[in-house]
């Protein structure tokens, strides 16, 4: 059971994701509408959309070429916080444990990648990764920030 916004507003949604950036943009619009309907603060909504963008683009760019064929975005309200789960059937990959490239090197060097992992880790309030059978499952929680 999920507990969130006032009754009458949908408090959970599952979105199958096509592994393509335009489809992600469409899913982000649905996600934004869902969060706005639940009264989500603009600041929280921004962080949710930012992290979802990075996680799903990682799947599209790195897991899709190596066998990922499907992904699912699940969002629900839990005690006033936004709980996101993103699943894909690509090779095992834990974005919370992968080594981070130093930002300075990414900015001035020739390898511009690596920003996404920084953004994921810095902009959610809690995160957990599990490999469940053949599926990567990343759970993320976002709540109002007080500081």
């Amino acid at each position: 059971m999920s507990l969130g916004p006032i009754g009458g507003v949908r408090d959970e949604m599952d979105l199958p994701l096509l592994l393509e950036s335009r489809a992600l943009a469409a899913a982000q619009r649905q996600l934004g509408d869902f969060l706005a309907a639940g009264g989500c603060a603009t600041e929280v909504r921004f962080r949710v959309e930012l992290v979802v963008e990075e996680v799903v683009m990682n799947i599209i760019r790195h897991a899709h070429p190596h066998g990922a064929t499907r992904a699912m975005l699940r969002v629900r309200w839990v005690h006033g916080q936004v709980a996101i789960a993103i699943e894909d059937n690509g090779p095992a990959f834990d974005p919370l444990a992968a080594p981070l490239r130093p930002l300075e090197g990414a900015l001035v060097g020739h390898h511009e990648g690596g920003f996404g992992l920084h953004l994921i880790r810095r902009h959610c309030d809690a995160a957990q990764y599990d490999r469940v059978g053949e599926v990567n499952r990343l759970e993320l929680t976002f709540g109002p920030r007080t500081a």
Partner: protein
Amino acid sequence: MQFEIIAIEAGVSRVVLSGRADAAAVDGVEAALNAQIHASGGHVVLDLAGVPFMGSLGIRLLISLARTVARRSARIAMTGVQPQVLEVFETMALLDLIPHAPDHEAALALLAG
């Protein structure tokens, strides 16, 4: 996302980006924007007042533009960045590479050094 490049004075172009800078949007403008910045010459003021969202691919695009400008020994600055986008830039240390000015005049002052 859309962009417009306006020559505002000798040797300075204003590049106005507008719309969400998500992955699909960046893919749609990256080649054309890079080509036009390359052709524009001189210093660049990036006006991001109309960009409410930017992810890592958008940041990569800005870095690419900064490199293009640096290669011709010119300067680049940003102005009008919305607060949440600015927070992302701060956490990613992007402001070390492309300084942010509170308004257009301050951006021109940064370019003048």
